[in-house]
């Protein structure tokens, strides 16, 4: 059912979608959206490629093969932002810079540890979406090939049996 039009649309949409995801995450502190939404948007962008080009596409896109590891990377980042303050004698989730202090600003992005935590959330959600969908796609492809092989060997076997019967 995949037409050329689908393929072109999917390709054209990939980069803008990832950019939107980045924007949603970075601007999360001043506008609607956060790491979670960004993660889902990015995962949907990848899912579109998957649907149009099939699971083989995963290996061609840079770094997407490692998306499942993003879940654990993200978890580690979030855990670090949460627990490192407790090592330094503060309560959990004490963000830096402290309330009221000015932070380094780059456009609408402020460099604060809460954003790092949000990046962790983004990685987890993105890895989860891509990981689950891609493993489904792979499993589906595997089942299909094994079914085809089974059908072929069935045919072979029946051929052999007939041959055996005749001798």
């Amino acid at each position: 059912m995949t037409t050329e039009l689908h393929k072109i649309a999917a390709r054209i949409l990939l980069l803008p979608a990832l950019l939107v995801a980045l924007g949603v995450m970075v601007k999360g502190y001043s506008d609607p959206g956060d790491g979670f939404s960004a993660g889902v948007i990015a995962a949907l962008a990848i899912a579109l490629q998957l649907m149009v080009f099939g699971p083989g596409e995963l290996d061609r896109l840079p770094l997407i093969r490692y998306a499942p590891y993003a879940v654990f990377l993200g978890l580690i980042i979030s855990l670090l932002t949460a627990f490192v303050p407790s090592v330094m004698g503060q309560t959990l989730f004490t963000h830096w810079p402290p309330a009221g202090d000015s932070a380094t600003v780059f456009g609408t992005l402020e460099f604060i540890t809460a954003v790092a935590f949000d990046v962790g959330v983004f990685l987890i959600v993105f890895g989860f979406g891509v990981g689950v969908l891609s493993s489904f796609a792979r499993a589906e492809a595997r089942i299909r090939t094994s079914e085809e092989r089974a059908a072929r060997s069935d045919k072979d076997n029946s051929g052999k049996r007939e041959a055996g019967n005749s001798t």
Partner: protein
Amino acid sequence: MSWLTDPNPALTVLIVAMLAPVLTLMAGAWRPASVRAVAVGTTALAFGTAIWATAIEPSTFSMMWIETWNVQFELAFDGLAAMYTLLATGIGLFVVLYAAGYMPLHREHKGRPLIDDARFFGFLLLFMASMVGLVMAQDLLLIFVFWDLTAVASFFLIGFDRDEEDARDSALMALLVTGISAIGVLIGALLLWQEYRTFSLPLIFEQMESSSTVTWAAALIMVGALAKSAQFPFHFWLPRAMVAPTPVSSYLHSAAMVAAGVFLIGRIFPLIELEPWLGNALVAVGSASMVVGGVVALTRDVFKQVLAYSTISQYGYVVVLFGLGGTYGVGGAMFYVIAHALAKCALFMTAGAVTEATGKSTLSESGGALRGMPLLAFGSLLAAAGMMALPLTIGFFKDELFFAAATEHGRAMQAFAVLGAALSFAYIGRLWIGIFLGSVKHEHRSIGALMTWPVVGLGILTAIGGVWVLPFRDIAERAASVSFRQALDLDLAYHLDTRPENVMALSVYALGVAVLLTERWWRNSLRALVSIGEVIGPAHLYLLTLRGLSRLSDRVHDFEVRDLRSRIASIMGPAGVLVGLAVIFTPTEGTFVIGPLQRSDIPLLTMVIATAASGVMVTLPRDHLRMVLTLSCVGYSLAVVYAFLGSPDVALVAVLIETIFALVLIAMLVLMPKSILRYEARLRPARWKLGRDAIVATIAGLMAFFVAWSALSRPSASTTVISRQIELTPLAHGYDIVTVILADFRGFDTLGEITVVAIAFLGIISLIRVGRLR
């Protein structure tokens, strides 16, 4: 590191005791043959430490444990702790020595590997260590922790021969009876906390006043203690626990597990004293146990069963003594525990040694063991004499104190005391005579010195206590003064006059001998009586309850796992009913408010109706793809509702989630075999099933509806929080409050949620990769 330079005795005793099981297990991992030596060595070390700590001043140790509830890790090596620590480690040393001789034989019988030694001694010493911790703990929560630790250790000890069903059942019974009743201890502790805002017993004693909360707390803790001490009607676990290897029985049922119960009564005695009826309850329960245990012990044939029922009966004495109160009551209870532990432990060991030597374990099959094992017979004769309260043994004084306490409470109590003591005289006498006297009925092989000398040692200690009672009296006095909260003086000496105690002792001997001589006449009728008790007794009730619960749980489980529908129904149905009951029974004024409807609400209302309509539509399609699509229709309409409500964050997330959710569902459908999907789509469920589903759905829907309605009708409780958070948002370098809440204010919740996501991801991936899915 200050502990190294200035050792705190209380902490030291606990650490040394805790080292014993750890080192034993390590020795087991390193070289199983060394386990026995290590166990003996570490126990001796623990005993030595206990003696050292007893000799110096009482000491305390305290450390903040759970700050929010004001729970201290509070230990005190006071008189009471000293007595029970000495018992646990001292008797423990004898038991470990005996077990070092017993275990090789036991393993040989059962065909078990050498490594089982590590398990055995590990749990035995864990029991000892938790007992030591229990008796020093001053904080009720800490007491509860050690209390349960003893229960866990006893479970593994009683069920040591785990291949035998009987052993497993008995271990479970002991765990259930003592574990469930332990909840009484916990509830009691929480009640006391509610009253005094502390779990620390010394602080509670300082400010306690008689009130119904305190009385109930004390009563609940008492129930836990009585079950642990195998008192009527919780006594039935103890005879069953006799399936354990003999060293376990001789330890748990002389100086450890059952002693823990009366220890706890001694620990909270100031609370019990506040209310007279608690003392009376103790007298009643103790008396019942005395009679039931004593009568049944007279009819038993198996050695260990006689001893088990005698333990029930004799801890009944201790409980009665606590109930009577006063100098003689409390002091007598402490002294009784010491005397009983020495003698009973030796008798249990004797039973095990005789069984190992002759292969026989019943009175009717044995006799005349005196000739083959004169040393064992001598040791156990001293112990039996102690139990029978003959003069020149420590046991004489235990009964003297008992009689003195009874005399303070009138003639009826005196008569009852004599009766109880005579029963005790009779069943112990019957046991010893049955084993060692009479004609020789069997061959026997020699047993090692390790199984004989501990008995002799304990027997000699029993005899020494009858001549030089001073050290034992001191220990008991110091322990009693902790429970009694004032110094007391136990006058223990032989008096050659006709004071009531002496007269009572003489009548006990006369009555006891009479009972022994007339066994022929009462034996059969007593057995009949006891078998009636077995049919209608609490053990039967326990069995019925257990079976009923098991059947109920099976039925619920069968229903729940049958298919997805019944699984959902078994969660949503009961939850809906419970919430419905809550809605009916709580005052609902102001909870369910119907707000005014304005013109501007019309778009919102339309979308809400659309959502509801698509929700209904989900039930219609039969084929799976359409179901998924209708389901996401519900989600998208809900997203529009959020958008109209003015929460763009939530609307955005809803749309995204709905999209990816639909994709995942469709991907799952692709994975499923087409034939199954087609078959399922064609399936026409029976009409009654549809009706049942509709009812469950209605209940669950109403529940969700009422919960949402009541939550939305009362936003006032959280508005202050919300406005405060809105105020704080710029301070947290943000302008979008939802993000700031997620990443900062409630960051910990988010962390928990994303951790769940990561774990779920791991599960999904491994399920698919391993190929469990098809």
